[in-house]
């Protein structure tokens, strides 16, 4: 609020175009499609990821519309099954897993560590093409008839019984997997080899730690889902009994292989968001993070231990009870690093200087919603209780709390936070705060009732349901329309602000991070002079001491935060 007041209205607003930056360095379609600049690739990803999010959202709205009434009268059951499958596949594989890493990560990892680009710019571009190809493949399958297996592709239904486009969709996901692997590989190598002088591991922003941990999961887990999907395709095509009990195969093996990736994948989704939130909380309270090394290492711990708990999706599936016990124990263990993060974020606020800008509101929203989502994860990890609630709406509510309330909030928060850096323009603050409120209310109205419906016994993936659950579903559908509207707002104003937003200074929030020490938007090389880092992470200093290293002339407008407000 106070930031806005400090804008002196008569200050001439310098047009962005006057400074050479990554956006105006080159023009034309070709300069985008063949770019090797990580920042442009991030924008390519932003476009495609948003597209898939909207598609997934439209499917979600159709689901909610159908579930308004218990009878299942809007669409046929076969169609409904395709709706939630498409929704799940698009949201998980084509939106949430790539979202933060490929958009914000791509843009910011080099900036934050003081590098000129990722280690392998060409591979970075390649990963976008692979992603797009996988997406087109999947969309093609969906348009041609779709899939009805659920995003989990359980055998033997997917291999033998479903007569929809399983192979085509599977190949789409398979291809997409390589894009994920390449992104992870690029991040790991970049973080290891390309840090600016003085940027030691413990001076890295927590966003980088989170992305490092995420990349570990991407490279270690994704190949397994790739081979698993390949086996499903092979089994469907040749019918040789890999997962078919009729031929000596074991359908549970599929579940092991699938969840070996897909559980860690949920941490691919949440870890980058946790990284974003660490940035938001520290920076908007203008303090260093409480317990830096605990927050940093908890990311690594989540990534590593996250690989040991996949069997908690299989408590009622015919897995051995003893294996179930081990997996349950480890699931509780892996919750501790998340708890550590939550407590440290809270403690960071203590004696801070907290501002209520939109990104911070998303950050605070994240903590609250992730808390509920995470705690309900504990319900599911409790063996005897999971038997009752598994495959009910309780699970649906749990994962929407962590994925939408958690990751989506983190993603939107990050997008707002770095929007001035990405676009060189400010988003409208008032609309931003309003949208947070609408999204928060809509979200809770959508998914809180689902916990109740789930505990009462409403199974998931149900096209028609028992009438006594209707009240909760009506609430949920109502909430979903509010949520949809809420999400529409940022969509509109972010696009609007790219052209009409107020010009942003290099450092609109007055923060010490490296990414704020170059121009907004940054030049193609990020920094004209390779920065030498002499400060700790989140080490706040008076504005005149904060050196700006990524500008053309020393007197560039917008460098001095006191003269030029955002």
């Amino acid at each position, binding site marked *: 609020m106070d930031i806005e007041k400090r804008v002196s209205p008569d200050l001439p607003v310098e047009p962005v175009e006057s400074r050479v930056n990554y956006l105006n360095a080159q023009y034309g379609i070709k300069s985008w499609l063949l770019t090797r600049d990580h920042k442009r690739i991030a924008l390519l990803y932003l476009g495609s990821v948003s597209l898939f999010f909207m598609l997934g959202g439209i499917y979600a709205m159709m689901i909610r519309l159908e579930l308004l009434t218990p009878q299942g009268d809007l669409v046929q059951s076969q169609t409904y099954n395709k709706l939630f499958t498409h929704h799940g596949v698009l949201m998980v594989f084509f939106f949430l897993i790539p979202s933060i890493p490929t958009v914000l990560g791509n843009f910011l990892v080099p900036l934050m560590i003081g590098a000129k680009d990722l280690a392998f710019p060409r591979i970075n571009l390649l990963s976008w093409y692979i992603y797009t190809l996988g997406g087109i493949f999947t969309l093609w399958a969906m348009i041609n008839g779709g899939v009805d297996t659920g995003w989990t592709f359980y055998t033997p239904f997917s291999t033998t019984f479903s007569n929809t486009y399983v192979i085509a969709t599977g190949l789409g996901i398979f291809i997409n997997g390589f894009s994920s692997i390449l992104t992870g590989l690029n991040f790991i190598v970049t973080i*290891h080899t390309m840090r600016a002088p003085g940027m030691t591991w413990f001076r890295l922003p927590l966003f980088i730690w989170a992305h490092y941990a995420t990349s570990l999961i991407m490279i*270690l887990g994704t190949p*397994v889902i790739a081979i698993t999907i390949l086996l499903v395709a092979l089994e469907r095509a040749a019918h040789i009994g890999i997962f078919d009990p009729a031929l000596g195969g074991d359908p*549970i*093996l599929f579940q*092991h292989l699938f969840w*070996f990736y897909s559980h860690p994948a949920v941490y691919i989704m949440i870890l980058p968001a946790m990284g974003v939130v660490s940035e938001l909380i520290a920076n908007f309270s203008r303090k260093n993070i409480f317990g830096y090394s605990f927050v940093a290492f908890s990311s690594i711990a989540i990534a590593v231990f996250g*690989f*040991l708990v*996949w*069997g908690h999706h299989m408590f009622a599936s*015919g*897995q*051995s*009870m*003893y*294996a179930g016990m*081990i*997996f349950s124990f480890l699931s509780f263990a892996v919750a501790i690093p998340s708890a550590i993060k939550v407590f440290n974020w809270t403690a960071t606020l203590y004696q801070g200087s907290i501002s209520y800008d939109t990104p911070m509101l998303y950050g605070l929203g994240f903590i609250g919603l992730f808390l509920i989502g995470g705690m309900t994860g504990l319900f599911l990890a409790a063996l005897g209780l999971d038997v009752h609630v598994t495959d009910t709406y309780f699970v649906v509510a749990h994962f929407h709390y962590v994925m939408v309330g958690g990751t989506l909030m983190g993603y939107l928060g990050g997008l707002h936070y770095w929007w001035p850096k990405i676009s060189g323009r400010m988003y409208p603050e008032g609309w931003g705060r309003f949208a947070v409120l609408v999204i928060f209310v809509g979200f809770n109205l959508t998914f809180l009732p689902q916990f109740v419906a789930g505990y009462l016994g409403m199974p998931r993936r149900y096209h028609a349901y028992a009438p006594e659950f209707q009240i909760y579903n009506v609430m949920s559908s109502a909430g979903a329309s509010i949520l949809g509207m809420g999400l529409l707002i940022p969509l509109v104003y972010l696009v609007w602000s790219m052209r009409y937003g107020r010009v942003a200074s290099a450092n609109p929030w007055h923060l010490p991070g490296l990414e704020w020490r170059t121009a907004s938007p940054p030049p193609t090389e990020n920094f004209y002079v390779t920065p030498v880092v002499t400060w700790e992470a989140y080490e706040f200093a008076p504005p005149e001491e904060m050196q700006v290293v990524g500008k053309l002339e020393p007197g560039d407008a917008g460098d001095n935060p006191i003269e030029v407000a955002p």
Partner: protein
Amino acid sequence: MSEHIVSKKIYFLIFGALMVGTILTVMAAFVDLDYVFTGANTVVALTIAVIKATLVVLYFMHVRYSTRLTWVIVVAGFFWLAILFALVMTDYMSRSSGQYNLGSG
């Protein structure tokens, strides 16, 4: 750090060891070692394979002369594979009849 050039002699030595390993593998495979314990043949075969693979990794792939990071990466790869094997097999090997799973025999 600059790269280390491994001498030709070492390459040929390793090559020799690999050939010997291969021959040993084949020879061991035809001897019935089940009297030692069931599956002894497999254990022998895998031990030789692991030794051979280690030699390739250390010398042909220069890990012996590489940074700690490379070591960590290599070890991590196999460690994660072990996680997959261990936890999946925990499930299958601890399934017993008479309880929840009445899986066959």
